[in-house]
């Protein structure tokens, strides 16, 4: 049990997927301008990433490896993720319309979120077992959501601040992300 706890803390704080592993930076800078959109995106990623991480792990271990098709991993994973996102979208639209309305346009965007694909690949490259893959996928997504929401809070404040004209937009976003990443470096050595 304590192993999983350590893994969770490591994935959320120390090796944060956005700030230490550089995965999923496009949505991180793209949808972090407002708090509600950031929360929506964070929730959508937690939901899809956990599912995708587990499903791609099952496919890899029980289908690709026994049939010696490991070289097809990239194609299979991306197709599974794309199909999964579509499926989740249709399922939520029919069964949980409230959640669907909340997540809105963020669901389709997740297909090209490198965090999802990245975690799926890390799961199999590290040779995790099922529980580890599940915990790692979920906590990585939580780390993503945490960083995204924190960033949105900072950027909402920055909207009212006087920023030099040449730094406006993405440039100041990147510098802010750098300082956040520096703060998260402080967790290093905790585990």
């Amino acid at each position: 049990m304590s192993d999983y706890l350590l893994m969770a803390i490591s994935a959320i704080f120390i090796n944060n997927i956005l700030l230490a592993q550089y995965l999923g930076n496009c949505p991180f800078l793209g949808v972090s301008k407002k708090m509600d959109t950031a929360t929506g995106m964070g929730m959508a990623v937690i939901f899809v990433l956990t599912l995708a991480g587990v499903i791609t792990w099952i496919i890899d271990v029980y289908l690709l490896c026994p049939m010696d098709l490991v070289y097809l991993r990239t194609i299979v994973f991306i197709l599974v993720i794309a199909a999964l996102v579509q499926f989740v979208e249709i399922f939520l639209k029919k069964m949980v319309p409230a959640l669907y309305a909340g997540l809105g346009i963020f669901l389709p965007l997740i297909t090209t979120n490198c965090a999802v694909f990245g975690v799926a690949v890390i799961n199999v490259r590290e040779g995790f077992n099922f529980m580890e893959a599940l915990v790692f996928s979920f906590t990585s997504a939580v780390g993503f959501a945490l960083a995204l929401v924190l960033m949105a809070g900072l950027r909402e404040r920055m909207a009212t601040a006087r920023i030099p004209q040449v730094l406006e937009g993405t440039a100041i976003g990147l510098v802010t992300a750098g300082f956040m990443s520096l703060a998260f470096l402080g967790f290093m050595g905790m585990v």
Partner: protein
Amino acid sequence: MGLVREFTKGLWDEIPPFRLVLGLCPTLAVTKTLKDGLGMGLAVIFVLLCSNVLISILRNIIPPKVRIACYIVVIATFVVIVELVMQAFTYELYQDLGIFIPLIVVNCIVLGRAEAFASKNGVLASAADGLGIGVGFTLSLTVLGSIREALGCGTLSLKIPFTDISHVYNLFGPSFKPFAFMVSAPGAFICLGMLLCLMNIIGNLKKS
């Protein structure tokens, strides 16, 4: 003339990842050293060029409703080719880039060019566009990689894939204290932000 224009727009006007803020993850992750940045850039040029050409050839056959899925399959195919070739011939680079080679599949630049350009234009124009954007991306990665490696390690390591050409230049002599911050994650973000700021300043100067 048109083809030259499609090519050169990728080198300044629409240079990724500065003007088109897409594909940030590899930009931040593989620019610790010059040689990694260059290797990644070359891989992206290949994928971008091939996928743009193929998608442009198939643009009238692919049904619009499932086009994104088709594009992803085309891109993924070329990424697998790159992955296998790199594993076979440039193993060291393959190890250095690690997970970021398969991640070219979800690099928004590649999919973005397929959707925004190759699906609407002819084969030659798409090839020029893919090559231009690819070369622009490689330029950005090399510049960023050089800055980070020079400040962070005090060296510049040049290695051209598939050849024996390999040099490590020591820039500042033995008394240099490396600024290790630059090769860590926060350094990547801040360095890219500062470069973006510099490009804005140059852009302003050109306007006025």
